[in-house]
């Protein structure tokens, strides 16, 4: 089967579910709003990082990206409906590739737009504190925001395919993103830098210490995502539908 019609179908499936639409809107709204709020205080902090402050809204906002990825996959499993998707597209690898593409591209685009909007809102709030940001840093931040969110959405999609459950994937990822990463925080030393969210968010910082930089950090997140996607693809291909 040619890939384009399969991709078209997967894109239609996303467009025709309001909950998925809603997740993308939430991604933009939550991230931009929280970044704008964060920008209005805290610039006295000695560890103040003007770039990350502008993207602070992405910490709660990424939940929407993760939910989008998980729900886009799990919507195929509701009511035992996977058989219908696979009856239409029996080449499961191709079907899953199209599904992942239809998840990653919109999240990346919304992520870029969100990154730009967050920066603009935060700079307005920070005033002089934002003057130190170079154009290169801002570009890297916005691009990093899009790439990071797309990778997290794919991570969730892979996990949802592996578990065959969006709820299952989200009940692992949301506590992980909101709690675990904060709690173990800096305590565990350099190793926490290699967690999927920590590594990727380096791209949103003006300064960083540790072995990972912005692009290598995103690379580490991409490896985590690749692991989840490969596991999900294995489940889709090998198991009875």
């Amino acid at each position, binding site marked *: 089967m040619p890939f384009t019609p399969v991709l078209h179908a997967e894109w239609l499936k996303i467009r025709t579910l309001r909950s998925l639409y809603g997740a993308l809107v939430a991604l933009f709204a939550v991230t931009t709003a929280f970044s704008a709020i964060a920008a209005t205080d805290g610039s006295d902090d000695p560890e103040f990082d003007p770039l990350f402050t502008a993207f602070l809204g992405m910490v709660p906002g990424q939940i929407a990206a993760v939910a989008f990825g998980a729900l886009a996959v799990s919507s195929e499993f509701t009511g*035992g409906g996977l058989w219908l998707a696979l009856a239409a597209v029996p080449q499961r690898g191709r079907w899953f590739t199209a599904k992942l593409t239809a998840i990653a591209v919109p999240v990346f685009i919304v992520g870029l737009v969100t990154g730009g909007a967050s920066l603009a809102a935060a700079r307005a709030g920070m005033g002089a504190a934002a003057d130190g940001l170079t154009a290169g840093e801002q570009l890297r931040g916005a691009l990093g925001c899009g790439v990071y969110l797309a990778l997290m959405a794919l991570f969730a999609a892979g996990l949802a395919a592996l578990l065959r459950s969006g709820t299952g994937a989200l009940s692992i990822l949301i506590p992980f993103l909101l709690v675990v990463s904060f709690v173990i925080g800096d305590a565990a030393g350099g190793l926490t830098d290699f967690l999927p969210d920590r590594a990727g968010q380096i791209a949103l910082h003006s300064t960083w210490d540790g072995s990972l930089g912005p692009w290598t950090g995103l690379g580490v997140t991409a490896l985590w995502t690749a692991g989840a996607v490969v596991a999900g693809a294995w489940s889709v291909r090998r198991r009875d539908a």
Partner: protein
Amino acid sequence: MTSIDVRDLTKEYGTRRAVDHLTFTVEPGRVTGFLGPNGAGKSTTMRLVLGLDRPTSGTATIGGRAYATLHEPLREVGALLDAQAAHGSRTGRDHLRTLAASNRIPVRRVDEVLEETGLATAARRRVKTYSLGMRQRLGIAAALLGDPPVVLLDEPSNGLDPEGIIWIRTLLRRLADEGRTVLVSSHLMNETASFADHLVVLGRGRLLADMPMREFIHARVQPRVRVRTTEEAALRELLARHGYEAALGDGGGWIVQHARVEDIGRLASEARLPVLELAAQEGTLEQAYLDLTAAETEFTAQPQEA
């Protein structure tokens, strides 16, 4: 034309053998009823034909090809396995559009099948507002979407109202008359008898019968005659003398086993018995089926061990 060929097909789930060395062919141009008790392997066989489950051994092909190798499968095979498969938050029309898009089926066909299945007025409503019968119709619409030469329907009359049942009967007949291959599973005997030309019967995953429906009934159900007279005692004595087994029927009169109207009519005439009613009793599919599965049913009551 395209046939469905099942060859030595076996599927095991753990230690349970759901389908056991099954071999049969579903021919085009007729409606094949797929019968068997719950758990006999009907749905599993259909899933194997659609490439959804991997067979433990054997093959299931459509026109000689495995389902997964079909170029645009919805244009070659239409299937309804489970009407709950449509996502409740999509509209019926959007549900069909997503299926159509992957197989490059024009959107015009979506509106045609919605019209054909009587869902045109509900097309823009969300599927979760649909009744069971409407979901069933949507499932059938999805099966017809690609105008396929092969149609597989698992319990299509589930949840349909009386008009719906007549509609599906007419539809199945028409699909077969158009030369399509039609396989329909059901556990409703009278329903199956109303549309099937041919039967494939399973029990515990094995093939119990594969023959035309008429032949299946005639082979299983002995002919019976219903006869009514004013001279009850004389008739009973006459039948007994000629070795016929007779029992009093429900609405009066006698039911004579293993008899034909010609024989009983002649006997009564020779004995000068006034006959009020004399009729052959057609065997039903239900009788034939129960006769076949009596010994085979997986869920027959087993004697309890002390």
